[in-house]
């Protein structure tokens, strides 16, 4: 399995890169970590005229935390770098919980978080995390300057995003958790590091009395795009310690419409949605309590 011939450009500035993408249009493909694109090339599932390698552009790396607590991840930040980053972890623990489930160390050393999002694979962890954190993608183009695209507008279908061929994703922003909010991430894969048969990223928000006020979940390997489901109706107002997470799981299972494939049938996936949701919500509620106490002790 060898990639087909292609032209290769490795520009050293963002301007040059955007110029090339504008000039080449549909003939070009961005090469970031290559951990999804190179297998596709080798399997001859894609044959771009020119690869535009962004690995030499300075200034596309770096992780920063905004004053409001969002985590901004530059286009050349590898999964391994996000996983190790303490400031990102304390701003939003969901990022490390999910990134640790992305493939294996050798893949994480090369693959990028931004590339994962740009690839728009509904089985990818980071697409679900972008969705549930209400995140966005910053895209740049030669003529159009930069714009932010919300997760909702970004993902159009499996492996399909609203990125235009002349656009580069320069960073992704994962939204900050609200006050008194905890999160959890659970997935089931045949082997650790494989793409999950089903995964759930959830958040639970408590009110000042410790009752559940808001519950959300996003899933991987369940729908064509990472949708965020509001499960509050099943548990709002219940004390977190005795909340009916089983009912929330059942509600989730009734809202999703998974497809079956080689790895898992549709029914099995729906069952996994219920079970993983139930377990993840209990963890997220405990996390909400811990984070609320931590925040109080910081005052």
């Amino acid at each position, binding site marked *: 399995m060898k990639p087909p011939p*292609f032209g290769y450009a*490795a520009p050293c500035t963002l301007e040059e890169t955007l110029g090339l993408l504008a000039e080449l249009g549909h003939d070009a493909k961005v090469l970031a970590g290559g*951990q999804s694109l190179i297998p596709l090339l080798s399997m001859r599932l894609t044959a771009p005229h020119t690869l535009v390698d962004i690995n030499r552009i300075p200034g596309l790396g770096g992780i920063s935390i905004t004053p409001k607590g969002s985590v901004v991840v530059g286009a050349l930040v590898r999964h391994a770098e996000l996983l190790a980053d303490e400031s990102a972890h304390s701003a939003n623990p969901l990022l490390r919980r999910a990134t640790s489930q992305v493939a294996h160390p050798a893949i994480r050393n090369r693959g990028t978080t931004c590339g994962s999002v740009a690839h728009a694979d509904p089985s990818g962890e980071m697409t679900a995390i972008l969705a549930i954190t209400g995140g966005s993608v910053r895209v740049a183009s030669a003529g159009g300057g930069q714009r932010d695209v919300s997760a909702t507008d970004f993902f159009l279908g499996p492996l399909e995003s609203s990125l235009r061929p002349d656009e580069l994703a320069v960073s992704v922003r994962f939204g900050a958790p609200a006050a008194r909010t905890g999160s959890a991430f659970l997935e089931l894969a045949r082997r650790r590091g494989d793409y999950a048969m089903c995964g759930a990223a959830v958040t639970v928000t408590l009110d000042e009395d410790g009752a559940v006020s808001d519950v959300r979940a996003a899933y991987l390997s369940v729908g064509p795009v990472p949708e965020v489901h509001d499960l509050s109706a099943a548990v709002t107002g219940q004390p977190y310690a005795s909340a009916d997470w089983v009912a929330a799981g059942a509600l989730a299972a009734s809202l999703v419409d998974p497809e079956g494939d080689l790895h898992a049938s549709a029914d099995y996936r729906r069952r996994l949605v219920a079970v993983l949701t139930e377990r993840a919500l209990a963890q997220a509620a405990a996390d909400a309590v811990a984070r609320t106490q931590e925040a109080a002790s910081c005052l």
Partner: protein
Amino acid sequence: MSLIEEQFTVSLSVNGTTRPVTVPARRLLSDAIRHDLELTGTHVGCEHGVCGACTVLLDGAPVRSCLMFAVQAEGHAITTVEGLADANGRLHPVQEAFRDCHGLQCGFCTPGFLTTIAAALEEYEPGADVSDEEAREIVGGNLCRCTGYQNIVKAVGRAQEIRTERAGRADGDAATSAGR
């Protein structure tokens, strides 16, 4: 696309030696290492990132050489399985451990396991304990069709023991020479 592919001359620094290769952009790093540099210790199994046989160290960190192009490797230091033993030919602790524990049968997957484990153990101080659970995690991204993995997991622990023994000996040597 023209019939003659554009060729790129790249300096590849492998196991401490830098050599130029002239390759088309689509030459996978794994193929450049095997065919252009004739270092056939790096094996190629699946060519899509799944098996781990082609794993090499890029600036010390394990990566799949089948998921990189040779033209991207300029300026990076690559270590292949041939570069694990020291200059005097003494086996790397992981290599010695694989021999001790019978961690290989046909050997096809072995170079990928050795590079992966060698890099992972760098995260541990000599003397630190590597649990079986951690050992399984370390090798979880590599496939072996022969051994059933048990002896490979054992070899991870054994390699850490050898590192500890060697560090102890080095300390002893340093103490003796300091006392002289």
